[in-house]
């Protein structure tokens, strides 16, 4: 069995794509999808699938275990970044290594977050594209 940390984050799971919203007035894109536009105050927005490839905009390592409600099958330090997808910069895990460089290309993947009985709960993450 598989599940996601929150199904509303995803436009599709196979292939994986994040779901944001885009303002029909100003074009601003946000993630996760909202019912209004915080950039221009508009209220007419449409849900969109976000690009799945981008570049590392910033990154850091999470070297201590976050407090509740953090969940894991056993904490190990991990990387977090902001990824520039073009219309929007999205925060997420960076997986596959410990050191990153601003500007390097990455792509969206699904990765295991924790297990809950027989169910593997997945979240989105970015891995090196090369």
């Amino acid at each position, binding site marked *: 069995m598989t599940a996601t940390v929150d199904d509303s984050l995803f436009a599709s799971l196979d292939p994986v794509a994040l779901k944001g919203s885009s303002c029909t007035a100003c074009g*601003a894109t946000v993630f*996760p999808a909202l019912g209004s536009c915080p950039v221009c105050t508009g209220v007419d927005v449409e849900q969109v699938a976000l690009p799945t490839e981008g570049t590392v*905009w910033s990154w*850091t390592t999470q070297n201590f275990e976050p407090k509740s*409600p953090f969940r894991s099958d056993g904490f190990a330090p991990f990387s977090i970044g*902001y990824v520039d997808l073009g219309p929007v910069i999205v925060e997420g895990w960076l997986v596959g290594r410990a050191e990153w460089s601003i500007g390097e290309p990455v792509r969206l993947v699904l990765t295991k977050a924790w297990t809950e009985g027989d169910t593997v709960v997945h979240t989105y993450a970015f891995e090196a594209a090369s």
Partner: protein
Amino acid sequence: MTDPVYIVGAARTTFGRFDGEDNDLAEEAVRGALADAGLTWNDIDFAVGGTNGETKPDNLVARLGLTGLPFVTVKNGCATGGVALMTARNGLLAEGAGIACVVGYDNHARGAFNASPARYGIGDWYGQTGMMVTTSYFALKIQRYLHEHGIDPRALGYAAEKAFEYASHHPYAWRRKPVSVDEAMDADMINDPLTRFMFCSPDAGAVSLILARGSRAFDLCEKPVRLASVALRGRRPGSFEVFSTWLSPGERTSPSIDAAAAAFADAGISPAEVQVAQLQDTESGAEIIHLAETGLVEHGAQMQGYLDGDYKVDGRLPVNTDGGLLANGEPVGASGLRQVHEVVRQLQGRADGQQVPGQPSIGFTHVYGAPGISACTVLTTEGE
């Protein structure tokens, strides 16, 4: 033309761990500020109290006296102190009151703040996946900033070294043991590029100020400090705030830039005239960013300032002369008022720690916090 507003009394507690009640801290600060101004609680016409904790500041009247005065409570995260001061100033001007008391305090549990996703309108997934962490936000922000402006990461170590050097001379600071640049750089990495010595910790403390209008201020205080301006601003698109699942591409903005610009404009004073400043240094990177966002230093020039000793007590622009948040910790409700307290004492020539030489007459304070708000003040002993 409204009367100018002056600070005529100021007091703070020692910051650090505290086992008593929150109200004990608040009462100590208020009684200290009243004594500093030569007043009693009976003389106060209007009061403002700020805390991020569970106690009700307006119930301090149960200890201080049931005089019937209006008492406003403020809860604005890390900017609580600045907002409380602005509210007190506005109260003085709008209510026709003569004397106001403002108090800020908190007594936090150990460790990083544990924020609830729901309180910020974010889904549980954000906390469950370990991204609802204030320290990683600061790291992500300074990592990007150092990259954009080509700043040597050792600037982070210099900011820490400076903070603890100031604090080693300050009787009310919490962490007073000097730390070298190398020690700061080589300490345990918390969130790359920030190490253990580069973060402040939540702790306990209280600060109180007494404000008075017009000529009354000079009856109460030998050297009153004029609140030349206080400005509060929120975030606009393009700012990079804590707990942001997304950011706008393109031009970067900041509530600190907007609040500082408004405060300087309202005071009719330029950043170049500032002789002593207090900046929000939740971690080393925040001081580096805020030096530039407030207009005090050019983006990218911060490292040279550290190397030249500009921000030390005998430098061109002494910054965070009480050790800042790094050495005082962050009792959220008190922190912004601590900054004002320090600048007031510096301008009055009676600093608790190292006194800036040359009788500085213009000071600046900047507080910044979640979810993207900043409050700045310009303080001066010069006339209008």
